[in-house]
């Protein structure tokens, strides 16, 4: 997207990242709640999901977007937020994803649903370019996630807006950004008490210094088109498919106790992603692609595999 195609100085963009299927609804609710509240303030608004991330798959990072502006939104047909003012992570391990702050405006805000402190979250960021504020909110302790396929891909949503963890997360967004008035958000969400807790109990850390983002050469749509085979042939991969690296789907990683492992191969045969290799040194996990489904842990007959939270590891 060319930088000056739309001059919209008053436009605010909110990008919400979440885990596919399990948090799709809550991610959608954050953008819908905030835009519904903004609409009550006579703003021009837009809320939608990233079509590229659909159909969503269990654990795949997915994005929901909001645009809020006092002026008509000229860029309303642009299907991705290219320069977010606020980035929200519905699940903490998404901080390891190097794409989350892409395009962030100078002084932008990062809101993370986590029990950890803003300092800890800052430690995991691959880059903090342009970041001005880090906010953490323990939404899981304030509300229960709504896991539903309602409202996805043509289905009717009967569960309402902001009944789950979206309410406290939206509250934290308002605390840090003031993007809408609290009382208007309160009118929209189904769980206003949790929303208020998110607003009141989130931790806001302003960074002393805003480090400028490293300029990234943007690939144009034409470049992308030239690379994309359509109705054509592509080479078969040999040992892995580098076009679809899935390691950043994982919220927990398998750790094996080789003393307890009997090398029975049960975990190996049941891995849908072929991420376990039998070696002379026992079972080896391919963390570049492991999605963290935990079938290896569930099927291991000797209890040798344990799923460990991803943020227990820096790398």
């Amino acid at each position, binding site marked *: 997207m060319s930088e000056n195609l739309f001059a919209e100085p008053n436009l605010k963009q909110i990008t919400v990242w979440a885990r596919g299927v399990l948090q799709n609804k809550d991610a959608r609710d954050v953008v819908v709640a905030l835009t519904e509240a903004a609409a009550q303030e006579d703003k021009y608004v837009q809320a939608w999901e990233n079509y590229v991330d659909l159909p969503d798959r269990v654990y795949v990072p997915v994005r929901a977007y909001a645009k809020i502006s006092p002026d008509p939104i000229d860029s309303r047909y642009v299907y991705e937020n290219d320069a977010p003012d606020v980035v929200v992570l519905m699940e903490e391990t998404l901080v390891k994803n190097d794409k989350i702050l892409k395009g962030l405006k100078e002084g932008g805000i990062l809101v993370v649903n986590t029990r950890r402190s803003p300092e800890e979250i800052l430690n995991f960021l691959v880059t903090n370019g342009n970041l001005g504020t880090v906010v953490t909110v323990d939404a899981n302790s304030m509300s229960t996630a709504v896991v539903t396929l309602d409202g996805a891909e043509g289905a009717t949503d009967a569960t309402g807006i902001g009944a789950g963890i979206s309410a406290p997360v939206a509250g934290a967004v308002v605390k840090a950004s003031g993007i809408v008035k609290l009382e208007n958000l309160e009118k929209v969400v189904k769980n206003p008490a949790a929303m208020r807790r998110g607003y009141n109990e989130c931790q806001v850390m302003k960074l002393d210094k805003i480090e400028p983002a490293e300029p990234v050469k943007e690939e144009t749509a034409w470049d992308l088109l030239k690379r994309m085979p359509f109705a054509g042939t592509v080479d078969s991969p040999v*040992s892995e498919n580098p076009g679809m690296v899935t390691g950043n789907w994982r919220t927990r990683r398998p750790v094996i106790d080789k003393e307890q492992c009997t090398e029975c191969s049960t975990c190996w045969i049941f891995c849908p*992603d072929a991420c376990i290799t039998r070696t002379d040194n026992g079972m080896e996990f391919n963390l570049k*692609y492991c999605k963290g489904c935990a079938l290896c842990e569930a099927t291991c007959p000797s209890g040798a595999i344990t799923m460990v939270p991803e943020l227990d590891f820096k790398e």
Partner: protein
Amino acid sequence: MSEFERIPSIKKAPDEEYYVPGHRTCAGCGPALCYRLVAKAAGPNTIFIGPTGCMYVANTSYGCGPWRVPWIHAQITNGGGVASGIETAYRMLIKKGKYNGEQPNVIVMAGDGGAVDIGLQSLSGMLYRGHKVLFICYDNESYANTGIQVSPTTPYGAWTTFTPAGEVIPEGRKHFPKDNAKIVAHGHPYLKYVATGSIGYPVDLMNKVRKGLAQEGPAYLHLHAPCPKGWQFPPDKTIEMAKLAVQTGMYQLYEFENGKYTLSVQLKERKPVIEYMKHQKRFAHLKPEHIEKMQAFVDAKCAEVGITVPVVAAAQ
């Protein structure tokens, strides 16, 4: 049937992978595991045909794919037709001396939509004409790729986005599922081999793939592949669901050859169907009378193939 090498155990299964890491299938995806096991059993001289479904869309996102062997997309309607053409082309090239290699294994990997519903005519045509193709249905009991809509294999009582449970229809899905293995088994004179398999029983599944490929004509495998997204269970329970389906008789494992059913797993008793259904949110709305109806249906299906062991509830 030609000779084939049986895989004796999990431990002795071949290390080589032909469905490699790097695909956009759900964490804990049953059909993905299905693909991996089929590819492992079939080996390098294989061509896959992928009618539209999760195993096309999720595997080929953004112009790449996880297959180490040739793969081609077919429309959801015509997996059998595309496979017939490829099989015949190789046969003719070999006959005319224009291709020196061995006839490849031609395998269709169709979802329940591509095998049981939209693609059934093409499958039937292929079986009727007697092509040497292994047609596999990975059955996740819904149109999962487009967001979980009902398919003909969706079980009675299951919630889908097209069969929501409500006041008028409290059980959601009213129909009992279509039984494709039996539909194809009893109407195709040149069909050599029919079997059902499950990802919960990987050695059995892989040997059925090899046996199907060893036939001198068409073979059909119907493979049960639990779907964590559509059936709404945690991704680490995929194998448990697959095993429970067999242990409750919800899914029956057998081979059908020469007009006879041979059971693949010798159950001592069956668990009640609730043991399987209670883990899946798609059945969460059902009332006891619906569960009873399901139990009666499953009892009849088991009797049909010769599973006669009693249903025994677990001790409290």
